[in-house]
């Protein structure tokens, strides 16, 4: 007998899917109405986009000035058009893409409105995106750490603690031994905390989420304790040297792109290398194949002689080291000194980025950039003095996260065994 594979039958939409398609359409229409009424009508003045970072950018690029009201009304029209099609005919599989485009247009209209309404009338577009990349870094490292752990089916809620622990040790060692040793200390701390997670989750089969929460509580407690007990009286232990941005030859000279991506610190370059390396590693190497097998069907992997526990230990510790590097950035790549709870939930947002990025390194990076953008808005809008209370801008990344995980962007499939301890019989 030969294998006959069913020809794909035409898809029927379940009531739930039909509802979701409608909701996307309505969201687009609401965005259109909001853009028209709030950003469009009544807005006076022009908005100027600057592309040159003063004292840095190698080439001159002229500013772009658009009329505030006119462009918003135009963007509202496009949004309404997309929404109307989605509600009536539907974009089918492309609905998510259309939603994404719609959100970008909305943000654009928002920025134009904010710039046109501010006394400055202008803001620096390049600098905002550069800030986006910078701020997405710890989130992306958290997300990559999560990808590594969850591909072998270990949920790592402790990323937040690993970031914070990495930052603390980077500050302590970085202050006494220099920045490079600070980075090493951060990485090793993350790895050590992850090893604890692996022991609890793999060996003792403690509920993985609880094990992760314990790590977060422990690290928060001990770093706060030591900050008071150690750093308060010995400030010389909490004063690390910061690594300066380093321009990549040639690439750094590209207009705009160079400013955004290639005049950053070594951390950002490490991120790009990690994303490429993990993508290749997970999908093209023996290690990746085995890791994914352990995450999808650990029993199958076990029956083929793959050591499930060893794979889980290995990947979780590697994941912890990545989170530790993310933690070191807070000190060596950013402010040079440790403060209590300075990671402030970045690790958790990293987890959301991992889910949004569908457990794929490139997806995780993309999602982290979205969150980094939400984070960077705060600063831009602060400069523009829009009158929006700064507290609301602080909430933005968290609100975006809720919307993302609530599946406005559709459901994705985690590794099949995710979160389940493997019991060898």
């Amino acid at each position, binding site marked *: 007998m030969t*294998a006959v594979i*069913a020809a794909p039958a035409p898809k029927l939409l379940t*009531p739930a899917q039909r509802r979701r398609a409608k909701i996307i359409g309505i969201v687009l229409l609401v965005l259109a109405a909001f853009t028209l009424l709030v950003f469009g009508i009544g807005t006076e003045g022009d908005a100027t986009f600057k592309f040159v970072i003063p004292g840095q950018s190698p080439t001159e690029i002229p500013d772009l000035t658009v009329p505030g009201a006119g462009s918003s009304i135009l963007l509202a029209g496009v949004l309404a058009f997309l929404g109307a099609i989605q509600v009536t005919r539907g974009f089918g599989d492309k609905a998510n893409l259309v939603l994404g485009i719609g959100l970008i247009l909305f943000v654009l209209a928002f920025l134009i409105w904010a710039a046109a309404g501010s006394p400055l009338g202008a803001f620096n577009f390049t600098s905002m995106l550069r800030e986006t990349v910078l701020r997405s870094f710890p989130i992306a490292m958290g997300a990559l750490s999560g990808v590594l752990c969850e591909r072998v089916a270990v949920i790592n809620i402790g990323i937040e603690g690993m970031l914070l622990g990495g930052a603390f040790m980077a500050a302590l060692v970085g202050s006494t031994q220099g920045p490079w040793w600070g980075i090493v200390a951060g990485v090793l701390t993350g790895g050590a905390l992850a090893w604890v997670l692996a022991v609890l989750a793999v060996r003792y089969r403690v509920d993985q989420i609880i094990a992760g929460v314990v790590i977060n509580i422990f690290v928060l407690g001990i770093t706060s304790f030591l900050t008071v007990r150690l750093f308060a009286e010995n400030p010389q232990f909490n004063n690390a040297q910061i690594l300066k941005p380093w321009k990549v030859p040639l690439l750094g000279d590209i207009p705009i792109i160079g400013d955004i991506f290639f005049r950053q610190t070594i951390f950002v370059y490490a991120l790009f290398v990690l994303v490429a390396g993990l993508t290749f590693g997970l999908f093209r190497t023996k290690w990746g194949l*085995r890791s994914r097998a352990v995450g999808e069907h650990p029993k199958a992997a076990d029956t*083929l002689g793959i050591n499930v526990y060893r794979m889980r230990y290995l990947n979780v510790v590697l994941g912890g080291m990545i989170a530790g590097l993310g933690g070191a950035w807070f000190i060596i790549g950013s402010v040079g000194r440790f403060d209590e709870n300075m990671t402030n939930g970045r690790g958790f947002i990293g987890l959301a980025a991992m889910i949004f990025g569908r457990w794929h390194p490139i997806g995780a990076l993309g999602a982290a950039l979205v969150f980094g953008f939400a984070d960077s808005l705060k600063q831009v809008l602060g400069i523009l003095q829009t009158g929006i209370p700064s507290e609301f801008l602080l909430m933005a990344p968290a609100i975006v996260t809720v919307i993302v995980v609530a599946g406005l962007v559709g459901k994705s499939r985690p590794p099949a065994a995710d979160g389940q301890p493997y019991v060898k019989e």
Partner: protein
Amino acid sequence: MELELRGITKRFPGVLANDSVDLTVRQGEILGLLGENGAGKTTLMNILYGLYSATEGEILVDGQPQQFSGPGDAIAAGIGMVHQHFMLVPVFTVTENVVLGVEPTLAGGVLDLKQARGDVERISAQYGLEVPPDAYIEDLPVGTQQRVEIIKVLFRDARFLIFDEPTAVLTPQEVEDFFGIVRKLKDDGKGIVFITHKLGEVLGIADRINVLRRGKIVGEAIPGEVSESQLAEMMVGRPVDLVVAKTAAQPKEPVLTVDDLVVADDFGNPVIHDVSFEVRAGEIVGVAGVQGNGQSELVEALTGLSQVVSGHITILGQDVSKATPREIHDIGVAHVPEDRQRSGLVLPFTITENMVLDSYHEDPYSRGIAMDWDATAKMAATLVEQYDVRTPSIDVPVSNLSGGNQQKVIVAREFGHDVKLVVASQPTRGLDVGSIEYIHERIVQERDEGAAILIVSTELDEILALSDRILVMYRGRIVAEVKPEETTPTDLGLYMAGGTPS
């Protein structure tokens, strides 16, 4: 060249799963290992494959004692196993599944998928095991998945192959193809252990038969020298009546009517197409089909667990196409679910708590928002008695009960009330002969008391034995309706595979 088990004993806390088992298989022969569910076959083979370690006894390959600390060691000793539940990663391709664990690599651990694909194609051609090397496992029918499992074992140069209940998921025609492959492997000099609880199959394929009962080898036989009933008696330990005793059905008014039913899965793919049928009071209608042809979805739609895209379901004149599970339960529908542990029971709950899983909202088990645990316990005690659930107490968690007793708890709960319609999915899957007989009797009894019964089963024997009328499902459609006395397993098998008997 032979594989030998000598005095294998395996003790779990409180259970003697294998009791000094001796067993030998030579290369170039097929050994049938026959035993009913729960006899200890799978445990024995898991020891042989290095998944469990034996409490006592030893394993010898070519006379050399072996120490297996994991499947890797067993594989290295030339032993391969095709598991009852396929050990395939659904989101990997055929090739990736085959090479997993022994991957050909280029420098730096980079996978050499080109060579891997070549190897798969070579083995595939050598044994006539046709598989698409780049297809994802989740897109393949079970028959093909089984071929991938066999290639996986051959790729590791196994000399001895263990098949654990390999035919459970196949149609009769696929079983024939599969037997062809097994014979080819035997001719190629492989030693084969064929584990099953199906008498006909073991008589059809094995060179020798060992019978396992309650962890012990209780007999040996050569096909042709024993009858089916002799083997059955050896397997169960007492004479077995293989037929269900029942009188002719006397169908009355229709209880369940299904009109042009369409159901889709979570991703919008249609899984039930325009299905129409009816079930009358006092008759048993059996739904036959290979697993995954829409039966589970049909049952879910009938019991309110999934949404209906279009069409109508009517029970006792009431349109229930959009009804909730509770509304359907309250009409008098009993539902014995396909997977008792996944959806039929709350395993950490006690028997008492499980007995009211779908009736806790009714008087007298609760009044208003307060549970009445005394009334509930009284009812549970009565039903446990009446349905012969073997348990030390009604306050033990059902997770402590054996499969047969768990199923009896469900049957007691569902049949213990006034029932108009029974929807039973795989009611005896994985049970021992005693429990199977008991549950079949109860189902027939419900019919004789005037209930309409719909049985869904992938076991043809069960369908043929119980049904008064048989519907065959294939790819979400009902492709045939036959009377059990007017059909044969072969014809049914053809319908189940989408063909028509000539």
